[in-house]
């Protein structure tokens, strides 16, 4: 009974918001030119799906997002592990990373264009730069904060460094790494859209920008809704992955 009650309540809440949107739009609370009703927005989305217009930009955006995120996650885990596990790496890299972390990724677009041109490689580099931080910090925290008792166990058992890493450090870091990767995925989607807008790469981001410039607000909102659905789907995918990978922890208390 309770298992479906909660999602049903959430769906009902979303439906209520949708209804409010429809009423506000119909009352012309804001000019319908800039604020289309959900029915007009969904009709436009339906038209794009029916005519097959949506798939190419959706695929382009998803591809960039995924590649950028994968690169960011890989680099984040490797760097995080290196810094967390080695005193020397921490001394050399930490100040540099602290310096780079606050740089806005979208400000890197012009630099990336000069290096990679107007290409997918450029977009992926920018996404990876922006999305690496949550994974990096998560994995750093995960590798540093090993339970003292577990460290003692490793010492008592005289585990070699490599085995201690694989059997104790990695499982300990995994929850933090996955939490970081989840945040990183959302950032990747945002940056995929931003770079498409800034560097004229075809995709959902560019479609939204062009729709805005041509005063096609239903098309603009249809793009935003598509991004929302994408965000919802990828977040759920990674939650499922998390549950699977962390099954050994048992249900949280």
């Amino acid at each position, binding site marked *: 009974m309770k298992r479906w009650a909660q999602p049903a309540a959430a769906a009902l809440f979303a439906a209520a918001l949708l209804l409010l949107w429809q009423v506000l739009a119909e009352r012309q609370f804001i*000019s319908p*030119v*800039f604020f289309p009703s959900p029915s007009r927005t969904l009709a436009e989305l339906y038209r794009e799906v029916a005519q097959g217009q949506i798939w190419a930009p959706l695929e382009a955006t998803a591809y960039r997002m995924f590649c950028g995120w994968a690169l960011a996650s890989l680099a984040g885990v490797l760097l995080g592990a290196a810094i967390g596990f080695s005193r020397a790496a921490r001394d050399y890299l930490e100040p540099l990373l602290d310096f780079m972390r606050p740089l806005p990724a979208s400000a890197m677009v*012009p630099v990336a264009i*000069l290096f990679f041109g*107007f290409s997918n490689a450029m977009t992926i580099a920018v996404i990876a730069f922006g999305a690496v931080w949550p994974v990096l910090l998560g994995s750093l925290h995960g590798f540093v904060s090993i339970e003292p008792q577990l460290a003692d166990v490793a010492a008592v058992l005289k585990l070699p460094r490599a085995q201690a890493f694989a059997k104790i450090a990695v499982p300990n870091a995994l929850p933090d790494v996955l939490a970081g990767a989840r945040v990183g995925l959302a950032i990747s989607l945002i940056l995929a859209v931003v770079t498409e807008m800034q560097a004229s790469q075809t995709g959902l981001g560019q479609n939204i920008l062009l729709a*805005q410039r041509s*005063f*096609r607000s239903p098309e603009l909102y249809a793009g935003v809704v598509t991004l929302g659905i994408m965000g919802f789907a990828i977040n759920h995918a990674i939650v499922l992955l998390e549950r699977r990978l962390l099954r050994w922890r048992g249900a949280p208390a």
Partner: protein
Amino acid sequence: MNRIVIAALVTALAAAPAAAQNPKANIGYIGAADFTPLFVAKDKGLFDKHGLDATLTRAQIAPNVGPAIISGDLQIGMGTGPNLLHAAEGGLPLVAIAGASRMKKENPIAGLVGRTGAPIKAATDLRGKTIASPGLNTMLTEMLEKWLYDHKVARNEYTLVEVVFPQQHDMLKSGRIDATITIEPFRTKMTSDGTGFNIANYVGEVNPDLLAVLWMSRRDWAEKNPAAVRAFRAAYAEAIEWCRSNPDEAKKIQAKYLGFASPVNPDYGVEVKLSDMEFFEKVGRELGKLRGPVDVTKLVWK
């Protein structure tokens, strides 16, 4: 004698509130040489003379001007033909009330420049190339698409990327783009230092007398303020004449408002013809930028 003084006083008193009641208009423009007559009309008091209380407001980019007119921040604002057509299709009640500038074949202030060494001689050589545009879906870009379309080069055979005018030189030099849509003075800079070469005066080939920039307002504002529209047009026409007879002083006023004096200037013109908008409408439909026909007779204010 007294009578004359009293008569003069009465006239002055009657005139004072009349002058204060001049219709107000906040006019939006962007930083370009096309708007020199606007600066002159303001600077030389021509708007006041013709009965318009005008304030000038500079917008950062052209796409922001239309929404600002709709929201009521601006009463009059700059735009282009394609801009107005997209607005009409999107349901924005905007009309063209006057012209601002034209691009004539004999005075090509915009063109297509190729990277030195790139094997581009004709439109068909642009297949597979990356071309920079100052803004996707802008008038200059749409005219390039039309030029390529006329030469049987399909839209999916070339890549368009957005690069603002000041960055085009470096992009061309670094080889990240093969060609670029550009305007003066950027074009002369690229071609004179050997970075690029002129491919074509494509705008002139597409239309030898093109309406480049126009002035728009909300339809209901134009309906309620016919005197303001007339005053704007009259002041603008006089400012254009003034620019023609005082080119050096016009340049100074231009520099005062823009921060730079443009080495070349477009052809100013206050007229908007129905045929101007018909041309853009036809091109918009040809290129698939418009989803259906747009009734242009409703877009040009009589």
